[in-house]
């Protein structure tokens, strides 16, 4: 993880390759969606040139707020523009770098000479965004129904609305040589550990990449161990979840153009907690969390155990089950490993096909695949029906993971386990588990241990890990975040006990 510090400081200052503004405009003009027009001010008879990239500019703003004033107000110098035009962001500059950057964000450039180096940059950005919609990836039955969008401003708005507090601090960085994506690092000052904030800021500013399209790029680029199949930052599309974790003292990252926020530092158990857990009574929430934990273990281990048992450990099978297993296996020409791989891959195929197709067709595929292929392969004697049940259950169990990326990891994890089971039976399964354990023990998220609060054991943090205790028990922020203000609310008040009839 510490190769971060040894990495060469390869952050060069972003400079334009052009020397003059006119040179820049000349290059831009090579693209046909670039427009350059000439107008004359009716008062001063001053001619001026307006250039802009057409798709980036909102014509309504141009026609209502810019052109009338440019044409009919008394404008003689560039400074006059700043005073006359009712647009909030007007920059007067001769710096080519700024000009280039701003024009790509949807600014007009107004020049008084065709080849002048100085010009006024006027903001006329066009924003195309969809409406706030219902969360689809992290759906919850109860609770808020809004998601982040592809616009950073709106996302920040959604967050600010939930935390109307001056502690909420936003740092914005621009990353990506081509995309120049705005990346916001959000935290609550005085609550979040500065070290975490600094780690995130440092890692993001060190990114050297041409195009950042989505927040998942950032996850892959700033993870502690980029070769690990485990996601080391939690991603979410729910503003409520982000607001909640900010209050805990974590750091959130929002990328412009991505409807998914990133949360760090995170832990393994957090990937198995759905945000809906907090909307339900704590008994029910804890029960569901345990179910999820069990289903993950089941999903990863059941087919390997099947393969191991059938290959090597027939002694383990209870004798009442022996008949069922043998009769279902008798017709199958393949060894258990091929049978298991065949079915596992079928399920993966179905899932992948379902995910790539439009929703309605996808559902049909699922039913056709599940029922037709499943039944047919059993009847054709390619797979045993016992294994079919196990694989289907395992697939179902893997979908209970609330975080999509973790679900993928879990499905992938099954294959090495299968391989080890094929070679060493149960010993192989445990051996593979040891590798997994060793891997997870070494994993960190933003430099904080990934297996926390299980290892290193922090008993106080277990209140919201494998089970969720009631809110009255959650008076302290998680220890592993090292929050600067560890107390959330007064525990005394929450724990006040009353006598009978009082």
């Amino acid at each position, binding site marked *: 993880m510490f190769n971060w510090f040894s990495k060469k400081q390869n952050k060069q200052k972003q400079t334009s390759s052009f020397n003059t503004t006119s040179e820049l405009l000349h290059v831009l003009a090579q693209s046909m969606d670039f427009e350059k027009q000439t107008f004359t001010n009716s008062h001063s008879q001053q001619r001026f040139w307006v250039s802009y990239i057409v798709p980036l500019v909102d014509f309504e703003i141009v026609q209502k707020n810019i052109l009338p004033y440019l044409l009919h107000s008394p404008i003689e110098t560039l400074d006059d523009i700043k005073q006359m035009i009712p647009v909030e962001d007007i920059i007067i500059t001769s710096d080519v770098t700024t000009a280039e950057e701003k024009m790509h964000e949807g600014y007009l450039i107004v020049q008084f000479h065709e080849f002048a180096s100085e010009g006024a940059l006027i903001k006329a950005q066009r924003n195309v965004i969809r409406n706030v919609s219902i969360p689809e990836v992290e759906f919850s039955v109860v609770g808020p129904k809004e998601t982040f969008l592809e616009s950073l401003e709106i996302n920040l708005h959604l967050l600010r609305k939930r935390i109307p507090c001056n502690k909420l601090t936003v740092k914005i960085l621009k990353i990506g040589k081509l995309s120049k994506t705005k990346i916001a690092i959000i935290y609550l000052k005085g609550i979040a550990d500065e070290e975490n904030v600094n780690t995130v800021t440092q890692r993001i500013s060190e990114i050297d990449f041409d195009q950042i399209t989505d927040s998942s790029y950032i996850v892959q680029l700033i993870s502690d*161990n980029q*070769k690990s199949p485990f996601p080391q930052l939690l991603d979410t599309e729910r503003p409520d979840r982000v607001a909640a974790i900010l209050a805990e003292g974590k750091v959130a990252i929002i990328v412009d153009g991505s409807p998914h926020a990133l949360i760090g530092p995170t832990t393994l158990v957090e990937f198995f907690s759905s945000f809906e857990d907090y909307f339900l009574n704590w008994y029910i929430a804890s029960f569901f969390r345990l179910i999820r934990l069990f289903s993950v273990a089941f999903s990863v281990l059941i087919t390997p155990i099947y393969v191991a*048992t*059938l*290959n*090597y450990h*027939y*002694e383990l*099978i209870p*004798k009442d089950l*022996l*008949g069922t*297993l*043998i*009769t279902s*296996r*008798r017709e*199958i020409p393949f*060894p*258990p490993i091929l049978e298991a791989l065949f079915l596992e891959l079928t399920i993966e195929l179905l899932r992948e096909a379902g995910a790539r197709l439009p929703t309605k067709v996808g559902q049909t595929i699922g039913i056709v695949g599940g029922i037709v292929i499943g039944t047919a392969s059993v009847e054709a004697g390619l797979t045993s029906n016992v294994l079919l049940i196990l694989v289907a259950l395992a697939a179902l169990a893997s979908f209970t993971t609330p975080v999509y990326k973790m679900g993928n990891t879990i499905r992938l994890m099954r294959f*090495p386990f299968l*391989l*080890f089971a094929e*070679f*060493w*039976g149960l010993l*192989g399964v445990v051996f593979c588990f040891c*590798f997994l354990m060793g891997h997870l023990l*070494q994993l960190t998220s933003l430099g904080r241990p990934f297996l926390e609060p299980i290892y290193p054991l922090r008993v106080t943090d277990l209140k919201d890990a494998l089970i969720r205790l009631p809110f009255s028990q959650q008076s302290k922020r998680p220890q592993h975040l090292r929050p600067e203000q560890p107390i959330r609310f007064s525990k005394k008040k929450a724990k006040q006990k009353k006598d009978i009839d009082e």
Partner: protein
Amino acid sequence: MKKWRVLLLASFIIIAGGCIRKSILDDINILTVIGYDYIDKNSIKGTALIPVYETEKILNETFTTTSIASQDIFEELQHESSDPIAQGSLEMVLYGEELAKKGVIPIIDTLQRDSRIGTRLYLAVVNGTANELLKGKYGTRGNGIYLSNLIRQNIEQRDIPKTNLHKFLYAYYSDGRDPFLPYIQKEKDKVKIVGIALFDGDRMVHYIKESDMFYFKILVDRYTEGTYTIQMADNQYAAVKSIVTDRNFFFSGSKERPNITVDIEFRGILHEYSQRKYNKKIKQKIETTFEKEIVKETSKLIKHLQSHQIDPIGFGEEAKSRYRNFSYKAFYENYPTLDIKINAKVTIIDSGIVD
């Protein structure tokens, strides 16, 4: 990262050299019961029972072979079988009576040495030959399940004391105890438990008849369920169902020649009473009759065991735990003439839902 190369290397090593011989469930013949019979001094006959699983029922397939030693029989059987024979799920081992009288340890040694064989395995002695018994067809779920369930349910709910390979070996290796095994017999399309075979060391010397099995069990084991009918007078019967029995040993006197008292406690419920009236007096009467019966029968049984110089009840062990520097040799020299007294206490705790 080096770590990933390590992982790759690990998987490579396993794939390259780690192959172990598999025993895929449907490609092996799973041995469930094996029977041994005595032929002559140098050879024994082994009969193996392998269930053939069909969709609806389980068929029996038997292999018979003769060989000099038990382990050899597994090998010899392989010559007859199309799939390799796997002995890991062995549920029961039968010994022909003649073999049992010659000694079973040479054969049992394979069972305890082989790590694949479980210790919950049932052993039994067959009146007649094991071969003949295994050739029969019992129940619909195959002979293996039939035989092991027969023993199991008789241990759990009837009057066979707890027995399996572990118990047998425990008693065999113990200086102060002798092993015993169920004694079974083929009867047309059923198998019947006809008694308990008693061993001196690994040699069967005698057996207890069916009617005495109840008394034997209350002496060696904790008896939990089972009904026993006592005759009160002519045409007067009472059936008592036992709930709990317990026995305690008391020793007094010298360690070479202790006086032993066995307290038997019996608690049960009245299951059936042939007379119309049942009251406190009759309850007491049933209790005392039953007590007398227990004392009489168990004393007889113990005398019998003493006369054969065998100790399946484990008096030796009990004595050992009560005396320092105990010597089994001295104890067993006096064993046939030891004074063993029985006290019985019977309590009938209820009489069902009617009076």
